């Protein structure tokens, strides 16, 4: 009992950093100033500090005292700290002077034990511990320091930030920031000093296998995001396996276009269901549900109002961020038509509109505004998002589509410490008809979780842009899909037939699960689908009587649970709900799932699902190996006109090599 406490104490002692010297002097000076203020006499303090006693520290204290008494009462301690660092070169000689003056009577303070001046200030009761009230000076300092520190930390773990990023931080604040890094390697616990990686990924545990007789209905929202694939690609090409949480299998599958039949007539989309053998388990089947969105003729599309909300904070300096962003938007600009309008709002330091709504025809004006963007300062506030929405509202006209495109490295400043309020705000804007897309750039502090939350609540898509090629895919090839919604709140519900299917498992969509009753509730938000978008969902199902069945039938209650095997040939029933853009009531599409075999090309989805699950370390793949996954992907690659699939195979080979280590 005591032993492990001793262990803990040793570890704690080793982990406890030494107080930062600059902060220490600063804090003590603050206390002394407050002490002097409380005595109602600043002069006393100065007199006392002239009694030098301990060399360096006293000298520093003296400098600080005289500095602060020079009318710097309202200045924050951060400024005092800057003063300290800047004056230190001269401090040496100051100290020498003090020391050479000899030692005056050190007891001068003790002689004043009986205070001469009456106590005029009411005593603060012991219990009132609210330090904030008594420390107005203290309040502003941490914030200034926070911002400074963030600047120091920002940037990629792989690529240290260039000096120019560090520069805006107040000089004095670099000391504590550096101190923290060094302070980690104290004593026995040696932690590798490293730039903290503030990436956050949204994910949940993999969906478990469900028993059809107990839980025959599976409900989820569609997801057209592809950010996860690009993040995975970025990690692999940088030579590391992605964190398991960064892998969302459905997004990896949905990254690729498949050859699904297009809807005819006025239908917004057409579901295609096919059942194939599961590559990693001979005793189960893979149900692939593909949804192809209608692609209205490009010339019929309504005019677009685009507001680019661009994060120009210091962390965007990286070549993979702001410069890539500019190039990407330049690519996209070529796809817009003269009647479309573009506005640019930035946020860094202070939010500002750098380009008023401008017809897309005025290319040179827009390009000039884009080129003039420079990264610097820290991120400023919800102001940016609000202004972007205000600008979009200003541009909106009947029959036009308005969209805010938020481009950021993830460190954007939308206050996720209160996600509910953010959700409400974005949801309110969503109801006003303005959509939101989120484009992520760069790594290191990519807040994937926040991006997801934003895009999901803003009826938009989240994509991650790591190369110009990806920008081409997201912003040019799929311009229609990413910008023109054709159906809102698309939900899928599958009811499995217990006579045919014993168990099922939805692959991916962990972050998109809906409750069964939410399917018919039009108030519940779900994913949206854009023009020409495709969504693929995969279920691994275990037929009744298959040796692959994981759960034994119940000894009791089997009589009610299991239905008699039927020969309808229906594995299940697919229900799909969606709303036409701008409508409040949903429409329903229903189709039975029958055991049809699909085309080989769509089998690539299975290969990608396998890829994602291998990266996540799924327990359901058995001993299915990278080799088999790669072989399957090669087999089903098909025509691959854009080379997306060839790239995926390349990534799988990289992942294979990396995971062998």
């Amino acid at each position: 009992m005591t032993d492990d406490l001793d262990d803990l104490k040793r570890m704690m002692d080793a982990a406890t950093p030494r107080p930062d010297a600059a902060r220490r002097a600063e804090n003590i000076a603050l206390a002394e100033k407050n002490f002097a203020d409380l005595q109602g006499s600043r002069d006393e303090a100065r007199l006392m500090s002239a009694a030098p006693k301990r060399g360096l520290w006293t000298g520093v204290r003296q400098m600080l005292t005289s500095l602060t008494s020079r009318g710097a009462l309202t200045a924050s301690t951060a400024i005092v700290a800057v003063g300290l660092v800047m004056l230190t070169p001269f401090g040496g000689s100051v100290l020498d002077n003090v020391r050479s003056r000899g030692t005056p009577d050190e007891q001068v303070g003790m002689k004043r034990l009986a205070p001469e001046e009456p106590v005029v200030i009411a005593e603060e009761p012991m219990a009132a511990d609210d330090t904030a009230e008594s420390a107005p000076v203290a309040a502003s300092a941490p914030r200034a320091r926070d911002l400074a520190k963030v600047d120091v930390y920002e940037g990629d773990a792989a690529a240290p930030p260039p000096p120019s990023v560090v520069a805006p931080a107040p000089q004095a604040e670099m000391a504590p920031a550096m101190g923290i890094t060094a302070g980690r390697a104290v004593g026995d616990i040696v932690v590798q000093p490293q730039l903290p990686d503030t990436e956050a990924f949204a994910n949940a545990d993999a969906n478990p296998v469900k028993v059809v007789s107990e839980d025959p209905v599976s409900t989820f929202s569609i997801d057209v995001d592809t950010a996860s694939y690009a993040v995975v690609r970025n990690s692999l090409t940088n030579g590391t396996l992605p964190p398991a949480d960064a892998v969302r299998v459905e997004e990896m599958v949905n990254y690729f276009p498949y050859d699904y039949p297009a809807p005819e007539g006025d239908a917004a989309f057409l579901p295609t269901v096919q059942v194939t053998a599961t590559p990693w388990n001979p005793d189960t089947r893979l149900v692939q549900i593909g949804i192809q969105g209608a692609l209205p003729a490009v010339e019929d599309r309504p005019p677009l109002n685009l507001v680019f909300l661009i994060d120009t904070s210091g962390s965007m300096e990286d070549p993979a961020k702001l410069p890539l962003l500019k190039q990407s938007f330049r690519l996209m600009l070529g796809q817009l038509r003269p009647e479309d309008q573009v506005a640019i709002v930035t946020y860094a330091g202070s939010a500002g509109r750098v380009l008023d709504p401008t017809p897309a025809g005025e290319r040179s004006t827009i390009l000039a505004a884009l080129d003039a963007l420079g990264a610097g300062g820290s991120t400023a506030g919800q102001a940016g998002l609000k202004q972007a929405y205000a600008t979009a509202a200003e541009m909106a006209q009947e029959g036009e589509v308005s969209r805010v495109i938020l481009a950021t490295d993830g460190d954007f400043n939308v206050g996720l410490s209160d996600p509910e309020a953010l959700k409400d705000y974005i949801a309110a804007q969503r109801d006003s008809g303005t959509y939101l897309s989120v484009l992520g750039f760069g790594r290191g502090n990519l807040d994937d979780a926040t991006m997801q939350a934003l895009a999901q609540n803003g009826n938009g898509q989240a994509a991650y842009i790591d190369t110009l090629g990806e920008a081409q895919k997201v912003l040019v090839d799929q311009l229609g899909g990413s910008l023109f919604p054709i159906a809102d709140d698309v939900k899928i519900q599958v009811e499995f037939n217990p006579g045919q299917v014993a168990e099922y498992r939805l692959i991916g969509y962990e972050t998109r699960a809906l409750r069964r009753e939410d399917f018919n509730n039009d108030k519940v938000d779900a994913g949206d689908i854009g023009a020409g978008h495709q969504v693929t969902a995969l279920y691994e199902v275990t037929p009744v009587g298959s040796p692959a069945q994981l759960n034994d039938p119940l000894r009791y209650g089997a009589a009610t649970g299991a239905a008699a095997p039927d020969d309808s040939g229906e594995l299940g029933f697919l229900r799909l709900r969606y709303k036409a853009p701008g409508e409040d009531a949903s429409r329903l599409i229903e189709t039975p799932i029958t055991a049809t075999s699909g085309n080989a090309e769509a089998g690539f989805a299975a290969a990608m699902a396998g890829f994602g699950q291998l990266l996540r370390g799924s327990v359901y793949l058995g001993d299915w190996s990278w080799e088999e996954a790669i072989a399957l992907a090669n087999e089903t690659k098909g025509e691959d006109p854009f080379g997306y699939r060839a790239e995926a195979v390349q990534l799988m080979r990289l992942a294979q090599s990396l995971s062998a280590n």
Partner: protein
Amino acid sequence: MLMETSDETLALAAAGGDAAAFSALLERQYDRMFRLCFRLTGSRHEAEDLTQDICAALPAKLRGYRGEASVTTWLYRICVNAAHDRRRRAASHAKAALGWGEWEVARRAVAEDEAEATDWLTRAMRALPPDLRDTLALVLDDMTHRAAGEVLGISEGTVSWRVSEAKKHLARLRAEEER
């Protein structure tokens, strides 16, 4: 000589308005205060800020010092209370903040702190409920259970109980970590 004067004498002198005594006392106690603040918050950055809060408020509090408790106990009580206030403020601030800019500052501070907590110990300390964490921080600082109880205003038995609870928590966290 000043340095040989007891903490209590210095504190009483400072309470009476002696700036030199106050400075000497603070210089003597600062590192210890910081150490406790680190244990209470589990983050260097938080600890620096918390120490700053305490330094700012200390002169006013000192006037209430009557020498009834030892300076260490008295100071530790201030530290624990200040840490408590800070936590409460952070919580209500996050809840009530109206400007997103402020949330952002809070969010970043949190993200930064989390990145900073690279070793399991700090993470584990932070995962403890606040009262257990406070108790453990004091006990790890070589305080007897009785003295810790005095600081926290609870009985010695309660301290012992909390320490064993904290140990259970930590053991569980460690088991999870190693899994």
